[in-house]
């Protein structure tokens, strides 16, 4: 059947050589190469469910009295954005299913990107000639985070509305331009004329998805051009790729994974409640709820804002507002390090040659330790962002946590670095499972100079 399809394409385009070459493309088999695919298929689910949601959502802050079925709000003036979200949730069959699946997909999308990124960093896949792809990946991560924030801020509910107010303060806090940047985006001082809603909508529904789709296409093309990296193993060299061909094995596997990703997201979308905006109520500048949190992928930022000491210096006659440090400087440094990683790695390892074979984390102890230390530095603010919940659940005072975490923010990455370094070196020197799938024998040299198999190794 595939032959007939390929012939049909060839008759019409004369490109059968290209198609056959594509179908013969070999993918490495290791499961960690599927992490990027999980992200990709989450994106597919996001687009599909997103299109459905866009058919019902009204991106307007004009107010009318709510007439729907949710009793506690009946008669209250709410924006069109909020009303249309509630109507979609309660009056459109499968509307709530689609909304929740969309939201779960966003959470999983970014989680999968991070798992994929961790694999890239720990195995050295970003090394030459793949630095551009690494930069594209980093750009996609930052866009995905922005996209998610814009998306859950659309319904104009109390939870996301408070987050938007904070975002305004962060925009305002950028030195030199902050005074203009905030009102620029909101068209006036917060809350502005209301046009922020349609701007977020345009960003979320059109601009960022298009950019993401383009970057994904380039990302995949570059992988295909350079071919995948692979772990070392029998028969695997820097000059080949060993694995499974696209057709039929890998294509079926990938389609299967796509279906499973969609299935898991739909199961969550139907069974586990997420973002119940009717319970939060509509946003009101003068109201606030305790325990308000952004979605998980922004948790590092709320934590950073909470951990910063109360400094708001006036330098050379201009104020540097406090949210700048946690909301702008910290993520800028984090992303800066991320983007610079291939070049920093090159500087430290003095290795400029191209690599297509991946290293096991233990075989690059300094890199692995640095990755884990950097990850720790980003993860500590996540904990700070959840400190109030930790206080309630585990009875550790909030002020105490702030003090401890401020110290941990500096100390823990260093400690993790040192521990990881030692563990990697020990694993490496102990000779455990020297090569993937390798079943030879480890020899050691005796004092007399002869070789003998080391006891206990396969």
């Amino acid at each position, binding site marked *: 059947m595939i032959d007939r399809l390929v012939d049909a394409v060839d008759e019409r385009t004369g490109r059968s050589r290209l198609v056959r070459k594509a179908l013969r493309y070999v993918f490495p088999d290791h499961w960690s190469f599927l992490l990027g695919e999980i992200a990709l298929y989450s994106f597919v689910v996001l687009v599909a469910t997103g299109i459905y949601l866009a058919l019902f959502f009204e991106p307007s802050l004009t107010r009318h009295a709510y007439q729907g079925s949710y009793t*506690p709000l009946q008669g209250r003036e709410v924006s069109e954005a909020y009303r249309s979200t509630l109507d979609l949730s309660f009056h459109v069959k499968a509307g709530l299913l689609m909304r929740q699946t969309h939201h779960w997909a966003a959470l999983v999308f970014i989680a999968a990107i991070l798992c994929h990124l961790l694999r890239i960093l720990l195995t050295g896949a970003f090394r030459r000639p793949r630095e551009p792809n690494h930069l594209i990946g980093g750009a996609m991560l930052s866009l995905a985070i922005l996209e998610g924030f814009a998306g859950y801020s659309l319904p104009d509910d*109390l939870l996301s509305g408070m987050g938007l107010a904070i975002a305004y303060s962060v925009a305002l806090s950028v030195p030199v331009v902050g005074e203009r940047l905030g009102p620029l985006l909101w068209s006036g001082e917060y809350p502005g004329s209301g046009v922020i809603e349609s701007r977020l909508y345009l960003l979320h529904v059109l601009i960022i998805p298009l950019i993401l789709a383009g970057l994904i296409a380039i990302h995949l093309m570059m992988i295909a051009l350079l071919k995948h990296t692979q772990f070392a193993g029998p028969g695997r060299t820097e000059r080949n790729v060993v694995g499974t061909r696209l057709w039929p094995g890998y294509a079926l596997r990938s389609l299967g994974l796509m279906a499973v990703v969609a299935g898991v997201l739909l199961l969550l979308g139907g069974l586990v409640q997420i973002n119940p905006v009717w319970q939060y109520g509509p946003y009101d500048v003068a109201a606030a709820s*305790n325990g308000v949190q952004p979605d998980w992928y922004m948790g590092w930022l709320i934590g950073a804002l909470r951990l910063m000491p109360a400094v708001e210096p006036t330098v050379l006659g201009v104020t540097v507002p406090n949210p700048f440090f946690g909301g702008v400087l910290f993520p800028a440094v984090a992303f800066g390090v991320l983007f610079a990683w291939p070049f920093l790695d090159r500087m430290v390892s003095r290795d400029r040659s191209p690599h297509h074979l991946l290293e096991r984390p233990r075989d690059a102890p300094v890199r692995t330790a640095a990755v884990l230390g950097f990850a720790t530095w980003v993860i500590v603010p996540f904990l700070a962002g959840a400190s109030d919940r930790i*206080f*309630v659940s585990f009875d550790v005072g909030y002020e105490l946590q702030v003090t401890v975490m401020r110290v941990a923010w500096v100390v823990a990455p260093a400690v993790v670095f040192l521990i990881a370094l030692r563990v990697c070196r020990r694993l490496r020197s102990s000779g455990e499972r020297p090569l993937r799938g390798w079943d030879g024998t480890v020899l050691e040299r005796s004092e007399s100079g002869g070789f003998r198999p080391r006891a206990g190794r396969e």
Partner: protein
Amino acid sequence: MLRRSLAALVSVALLAAASAATVHAAGQADIDRGRTLFAERCSSCHGADAMGVQHQGPSLIGVGALAADFELSTGRMPLAAPNLQPIRSDPSFSGADIRRLVAYIASLGGPAIPSVDPSRGSMLEGRDLFALQCAGCHQISGAGGVVTGATVPALDQATPTQIAEAVRLGPYLMPRFGPEQLDQHQLDSIALYVTQTTRHPDDAGGLPLGHLGPIPEGMVAWLVAMGALLVVARMTGERAS
């Protein structure tokens, strides 16, 4: 005919008088029993005459049945040590003993237990009031939270009477709202909103994860979704040969 009505009237009157006397007699007995209980269990912190002990417990003169009933029925009192935050727990006294202690404290003066009827309240007004006045501490769904220096309790176990008592009293670090600021209808509405939201929340979306929002949602995304997908990925990828 007339004689029968008269007899009925007289018996009703006698019955009323008798029950009033019983109540009055019971009232006094309760107060006395309450005083004894107080001396046994409360005076170490609040003083033998409820006038307080320095650095231990405040005076209870004038706090009234309102405060006593709230603190005792929610198990906040007795407090294990003077500077702890009072926390809801199983009451240390039986319902009858609580009534007696309350009667004793009431006899020292102060506000009575407030009346409240959620069924007379309005859900819309209750929600709006709660969102503006209460949600900052208690969280919009009544799940509780944190204020600098203390935790804020969840409201899922609060009875309408306890809600009304807390609103009027302002226990521990909570502000208080008198009848001039929140009238009876507003109090009924808040009690309605709180009891409905905490007992019968609209969880059309499925498992509510404690109504705590993005933190448990993020944990589910990582532990359940990514966990399952990582298992499937391992299954799909390189097989252990």
